């Protein structure tokens, strides 16, 4: 008696790409909600850090706008930490845990896997950032006055695209690292908070330093958002919002293209050399 083996329809091309994006984004979003205590600490600890900077500003008699700058900057740190620990170093962790080989062997695009990681991380972090923003705003009596909602939305969208594009690009670079990936990710915290102006207007660093720091999308993104959310912040702004929108668009293009190029390069290198770590290890 002949038996018929049921065959599942195979996804291909764009359908496969989007299914992979969804499949990789799903555990990110669900996983974030599984451990309730983590959610609490993910919100509570940044608020403690924000509170420390707010009280320093209050102790030295800073204008109220600065309190708002700190709250907004503090909320945006969630995105930087997510990009750093869950994007840039993610492929390195996957390599450590043995999942990377499965990703590479899977009949799907690595770009789709990275995009899924980015989308899932972005949505999960957005929820946390909104809560931090509301609690911080309520605790420290910050008045947010949105002057142009659609531009604010555009700036946020461009900042996130460029930022997660940077994360996707650096994920390939982190693959080259061995154990010091942890140190490197850790090193990119406080120095980036400093040069990107998370807790003060980046304009104060001087034009050239602020311009160099603008390679990190959060620098221009945060500066533009501050100008759009606090009307009096225009005087503290580094560049005009329109210029920052153009700058962020350019960064989106460069980082997404760079992510694709580096991923292909790493794949080629690993095939040629038969390894994925630097030569001295």
């Amino acid at each position, binding site marked *: 008696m002949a038996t018929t083996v049921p065959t599942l329809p195979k996804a291909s091309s764009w359908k496969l790409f989007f299914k992979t994006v969804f499949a990789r984004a799903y555990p990110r979003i669900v996983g974030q909600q599984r451990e309730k205590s983590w959610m609490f600490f993910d919100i509570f600890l940044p608020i403690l850090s924000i509170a420390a*900077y707010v009280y*320093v*500003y209050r*102790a*030295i*008699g*800073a204008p109220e706008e*600065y309190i708002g700058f700190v709250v907004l900057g503090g909320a945006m740190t969630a995105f930087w930490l997510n990009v750093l620990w869950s994007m840039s170093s993610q492929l390195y962790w996957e390599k450590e845990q043995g999942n990377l080989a499965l990703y590479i062997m899977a009949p799907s695009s690595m770009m789709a896997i990275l995009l899924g990681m980015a989308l899932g991380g972005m949505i999960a972090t957005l929820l946390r950032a909104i809560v931090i923003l509301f609690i911080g705003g309520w605790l420290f009596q910050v008045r947010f006055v949105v002057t142009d909602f659609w531009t604010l939305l555009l700036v946020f969208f461009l900042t996130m695209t460029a930022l997660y594009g940077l994360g996707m690009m650096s994920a390939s670079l982190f693959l080259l690292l061995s*154990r*010091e990936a*942890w*140190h*490197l990710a*850790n*090193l990119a*915290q*406080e*120095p980036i*908070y*400093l040069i990107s102006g*998370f*807790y*003060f*207007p980046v304009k*104060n*660093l001087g034009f050239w330093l602020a311009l160099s720091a603008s390679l990190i999308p959060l620098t221009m993104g945060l500066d533009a958002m501050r100008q759009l959310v606090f009307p009096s912040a225009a005087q503290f702004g580094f560049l005009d919002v329109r210029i920052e929108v153009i700058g962020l668009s350019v960064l989106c293009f460069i980082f997404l293209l760079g992510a694709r190029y580096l991923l292909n390069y790493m794949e080629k290198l690993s095939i040629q050399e038969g390894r994925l770590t630097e030569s001295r290890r």
Partner: protein
Amino acid sequence: MQTRLASFLSFSWRSFRLATWLGWQIESNWADPFLFTIYSLIKPLSSAAILVIMYSIITKANFDSPIFPYIYLGNAFYMYVGHVMTGISWAVIDDREHYKTMKYIYTAPVHFPSYLLGRGVARFIIASISVVVTIVFGMLFLNISIDLTQVNWFFLY
């Protein structure tokens, strides 16, 4: 009785000493020495620089005010809180979740509390380097005057 105490102390000391060595290897030698040096210097200085810039924007760089050393030193010594608190607790997570060696260490003839304390020492050393670097930077470049002869070292420790 004395022999048992001496044996216990020797046992604990050996566990502590070896765990300290292991902790230091994990924290430092497993990374590129150049990267580790940069990491140990840049991170605390950046953290201090955020406060310095915040302060200088608002006060127009009035570093002579007594509130500045107060904020600066508070920030410098706060590094101990993070490093020491995470030092021991992270050792448990690292050994259990990452290296999967916790059960072997627990069942090995080591004094476990001394082992954990030893693992935390590496981070304490890194924190101490960061604190010293931050304070020296403040004394050299930000006019923070600390008279070492006036410090009450006994109460400080």
